[in-house]
């Protein structure tokens, strides 16, 4: 048999698999989990406060009373070495310094893998810490190891990406999914008009936050901007080059039909803006997305991108640390309605056992240069 021919065939199969894995038409999105979507009310104005729910978090059993005493925390984000989690880590260190009686280290996998993250947490349980801060790669997969931590008297607080509620005590919610979805869709509709078409560049269809946001965006758009047309959603991992290529493909594929691009990750948004800039379509194709200000400054200052949606990740890490301190000190108990978070003031409790950081922040030309992360 001709080995060379078969090599070619095998490579062709490989290329085909890689090529077909990345696109999906805009049919029904349900967020990759079994939760119902909950679109906010249309138009401006703050959302009505949700009805109070009973506390549904877990409890650390037999935790030593360390109220006011020095504690050691470990922070295990989804992965280390990217700008976003460097920013949350900075917030954690800021809060630790401010509080004075908290020592915190950030450690985690270099890739966002569920079983690697589980092993890291497991090791820290064995090593012995007073509290674990986490951002989950998978809400269910991380639950057994977090429950193990709780059972050994270690306090557990999540931020950025939640676990199942009973596997941790509190979760600091940077912004509810439906709030982000509303901000994204409203910004897009304002920029391109009500009856135009858009496409989405996301990480993968399995990433919990992104999948959830897209589901909420679909629900909110259907409710409040029904004439907006959704062309396609493409996967681009969290890869710079791939995101740029996918955005360029969308621009070439749809031509004049495409009026807007959503970037769902801090990598996809600047890459989409770059693709629009390179195609000389600034002003014709709007880019709206989640991204850190530093990556977006060139495009915002050049007028190619008008709105960047995000919360402040430094504040997120900062708030998580204050929440943990309050739990250890016994100041944040089940049933509480707010918690004191240093310079952020009082933060409200929502959904039973979540702490709301605030409404999403929209960076634009007028304010983006005052941020540095």
């Amino acid at each position, binding site marked *: 048999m001709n080995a060379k021919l*078969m090599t070619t065939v095998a490579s062709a*199969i490989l290329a085909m698999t890689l090529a077909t894995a990345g696109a999906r038409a805009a049919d029904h999105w349900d967020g*990759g989990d079994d939760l119902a979507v909950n679109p906010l009310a249309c138009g401006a104005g703050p959302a009505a406060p949700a009805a109070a729910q009973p506390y549904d978090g877990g409890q650390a059993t037999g935790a030593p009373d360390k109220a006011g005493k020095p504690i050691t925390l470990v922070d295990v984000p989804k992965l280390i070495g990217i700008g976003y989690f460097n920013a949350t880590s900075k917030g954690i260190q800021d809060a630790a310094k401010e509080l004075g009686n908290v020592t915190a280290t950030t450690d985690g996998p270099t890739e966002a*893998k569920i079983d690697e993250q589980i092993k890291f947490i497991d090791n820290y349980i064995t090593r012995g810490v007073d509290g674990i801060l986490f951002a989950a790669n998978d809400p269910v997969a991380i639950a057994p190891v977090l429950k193990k931590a709780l059972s050994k008297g270690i306090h557990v607080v999540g931020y950025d990406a939640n676990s199942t509620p009973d596997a941790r005590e509190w979760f600091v919610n940077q912004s509810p999914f439906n709030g982000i979805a509303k901000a994204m869709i409203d910004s897009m509709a304002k920029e391109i008009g009500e009856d135009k078409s858009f496409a989405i560049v996301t990480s993968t269809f399995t990433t919990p936050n992104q999948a959830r946001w897209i589901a909420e965006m679909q629900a909110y758009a259907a409710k409040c901007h029904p004439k907006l047309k959704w062309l396609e959603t493409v996967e681009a991992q969290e890869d710079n080059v791939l995101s740029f290529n996918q955005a360029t493909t969308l621009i070439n594929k749809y031509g004049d039909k495409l009026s807007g691009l959503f970037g769902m990750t801090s990598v996809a948004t600047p890459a989409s803006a770059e693709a629009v800039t390179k195609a000389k379509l600034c002003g014709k194709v709007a880019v709206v997305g989640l991204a850190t200000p530093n990556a977006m400054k060139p495009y915002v200052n050049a007028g190619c991108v008008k709105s960047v949606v995000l919360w402040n990740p430094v504040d997120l890490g900062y708030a998580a640390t204050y929440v943990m301190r309050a739990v250890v000190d016994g100041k944040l108990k089940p049933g509480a309605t707010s918690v004191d978070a240093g310079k952020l003031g009082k933060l409200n409790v929502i959904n039973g056992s979540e702490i709301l950081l605030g409404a999403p922040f929209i960076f634009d030309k007028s304010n983006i240069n005052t941020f540095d992360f």
Partner: protein
Amino acid sequence: MAVLAQNLSRGAPRWLARHETLLAAILVVALVILGSFNERFLTIDNLLNQGRLMTEVGLIALPMTFVIVTGGIDLSVGSIVGLCAITLGYSWKTFGFPLPLAILFAIAVGGLAGFVNGLLITRIRVPPLIMTIATLALYRGLAEGVSQAHSVRGYPEWFFFVGQGQWLGVPTQLWILLVAIVVAGVALDRTTFGRTLYAIGANETAARFSGLSVDRVKLIVYSLSGLMAGVSAWVLVSRVTTTRSDMGIGYELDVIAAVVLGGTSIFGGSGTIWGTAIGLAMIQLLKNGLALTGVKGDATIVVIGAVLIASVLIASSLQRRREYGA
């Protein structure tokens, strides 16, 4: 002098034993050093827990030793884990199979995936490296295609026994691994099947002319590799209580690292299951020990890389001494 040289070259199995002895000695030294840094390292609790965590990679490392002994490689195992996990979850939740049947079905799909690898490698003579790179992408693509971004959750409590439970104080899956190690070790050491693997790896053409059924044995070996990846997927799903299509990404590298560290030659013809078991334990305990001592994740993988290079250097210098020494 000549007699001595003859003795040495005839002492190949003894040299193999020496590599493992050396590795075991290094392992013990490393354990003692790491144990002296942190009193929580050398506890029964921690060691058993590490055994639990290394089972998924360990189960695949055993047939991978067979594959590498024949001079082949299987890079698709991580993707087979993902495909089997998805098969398990979907055949149970979406197609309504009873859970025990879904488990068997998932393991069978793993075996089938390995069988396809073996079939193309033996019948069409695609080099194993290229074939399994192709199926690495193909099987992962299938897993993602079937699951469409959904994870399967909500397994009943009894299902977690394998991944989280224990029997006689030892994690359940560790029993499976121990039995598998003994079976694989005896098969490679003491049976005609095992001898055939060495013969193929040492010189495939000679093995064919000696009348060994090279293709059939290879087909069995690659099927076994897929089958064990299926078992590994079952254990993993049971441990983490959920099914996702990205499960097992990167396992192939962890598995091959354990096998090679255990003294199996990547060119085929030599290696043992006992070496693989020590290599596996060494990587797991080094990672754990370093983490407990306060070394961060990124530094740990640097140490693992350095240990791998050192072990390959030691192995090749031992081999040179065996070949040219005396």
